[in-house]
């Protein structure tokens, strides 16, 4: 009888602790970033980061990104209230097609120009369809993300 209690307890631990833990670990993959609502300003797109720490402005805008042609992206990271940032930041960029299960075929070069400005060289969306574009902004050990969905037309 005591043995049965032990088995039940182990079973409960598996169900209520281990499985949720495994599932939560899976959720920590970069794909959990929610797409943001983008604001279009002429040829610039504006996003809020997920943690609301930053505003990301970039051009060309999401509706002007070319199909299968290399292009550069000019990015400016500002504070939540659009203030210019005076502290050092790093930025990573990622893009891919979730429905196709692939990222870009290139690794773009990111040039940090200071004061939250970055130039991203060698972006390439090689197929038409739905892409995501993700910005990961790091300040020391802290990071925040912004993601937007876009459609690259044929």
């Amino acid at each position: 009888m005591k043995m049965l209690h032990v088995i039940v307890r182990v079973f409960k631990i598996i169900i209520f602790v281990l499985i949720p833990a495994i599932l939560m670990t899976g959720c920590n993959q970069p794909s959990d970033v929610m797409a943001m609502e983008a604001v279009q300003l002429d040829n610039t797109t504006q996003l809020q980061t997920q943690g609301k720490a930053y505003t990301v402005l970039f051009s060309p805008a999401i509706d002007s990104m070319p199909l299968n042609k290399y292009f550069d992206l000019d990015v400016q990271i500002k504070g939540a209230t659009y203030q210019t940032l005076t502290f050092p930041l790093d930025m990573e960029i990622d893009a891919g097609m979730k429905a196709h299960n692939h990222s870009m075929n290139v690794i773009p070069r990111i040039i940090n120009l200071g004061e939250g400005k970055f130039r991203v060289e060698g972006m390439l969306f090689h197929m038409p369809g739905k892409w995501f574009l993700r910005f990961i902004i790091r300040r020391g050990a802290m990071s925040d993300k912004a993601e937007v969905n876009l459609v690259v037309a044929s």
Partner: protein
Amino acid sequence: MTSRISTASIFYIASLFFAFLSVNATATTATKVSSDFPAFSKKEIQIIKTLSSQRYTNTSDVSNHVSGSASAIAFGKQLFFSKKLSGDGVISCASCHNPKEDWATHDAITVKRTAYPSTRHVPSLWGVKYNRWYFWDGRADSLWSQALQPIENISEMRGSRVQIARLLISDFSFRKSYEAIFGRIPTLLLHAKLPFRARPVETEKTNADHLAWVKLKPPVQHAINTLFSNVGKSIAAFEETLVSKDSPFDQFVARLTKEKLNTPTELFDSDNGFSVSAAKGLKLFLGKAKCITCHFGPNFSDGEFHHSFLSPVSLQGDLGRYDGIQLLLTNPFNGHGKFTDIKKGSRNKLDFVYLNVEFRGQFKTPSLRNVERTFPYMHTGEFKTLKDVIHYYNTISKRKSVNDHQEILLKSLELSKAEEKNLVVFLKSLNGYRTLSVAQKHSGESNTETGDKL
């Protein structure tokens, strides 16, 4: 008088009657066509226009300073058809890229024309100028650096760069053409004691060719490499002229563009070879069959690499793009090398290349220009007909996938037999003229292929 009026009236009435019959007959035809010819949306018409050969740009290759040069095109053609470039003097570039077989070969995997079997099907050179990467695995980043590899490949022409240097020094015709374009061959090379053959073989340091190569002094090696790269640049200048235009599909698009036609009935012209079946195939190409996802632009290719789920054996034995990137980055004739004409500091596509395990088993999307005539199909050459290819993609879910990367878009298309047939008819409408006018003009040779409508 009465009689004359009466005759005129009869004639007038008869004319009206025949005119009515004629109009009525046209209307009947139009109605029939209208019901058969698929309607294209504005978005579809916009995409269709981007596929026309009119959209081919006439830019030259920035990595090749003789790209587009008339004298280099003529010299390149001379080299392309010369068997003297091969190790045993038996084959030329044209042996496998045969103009009579649309600059390809109709053999499948085994290339019977060379001493050793190849593992991949010979791709056609139509539209080769517009590729971003070369070879099925993209292991070259320019057409001229691609042209060098088969010359030294032991499975292909089995030649060597030193043999090429000796040929250019000793053959009066070749030397005259070469020096007219690239200047005098350096005296360093003219006075050097060159072995019969030598080439670097980094993977096999005890190879006789390699041992002969490392015995040469570095300045001599550099002069030979420069000469060898110039040979590649000339061959590339010729190959760039192989562009196919004016297919029935292109003529159909021209009607769309020029006449600003709006209705399906107006688009139809039974005389231009673009049938109702081809139009239905085009509609499928853009939509249900999803071909447009990878086959877009005037060359009908994204120029990139994808997994096509061919037999697992070929995947294990041939890693495609994964191996290709490693070969590309170590190639001394690539866009970062000493022999490219890309200006230092300018943008270079090689800067953004990376190795990813997902690239295993990926192969380049081929152009569909003249696709009916460039059989067999796929990098393995395992399908003999377009019908086989379409049926393969239509039933692809029955195939096994691979772990590294899944082209999850490749699913069974649920196409009917009639739809499969329409797609094939559309692909056949991409057969165009064989345009060789520039190469022919400067080579002094006649070429019966030029201008043939096929």
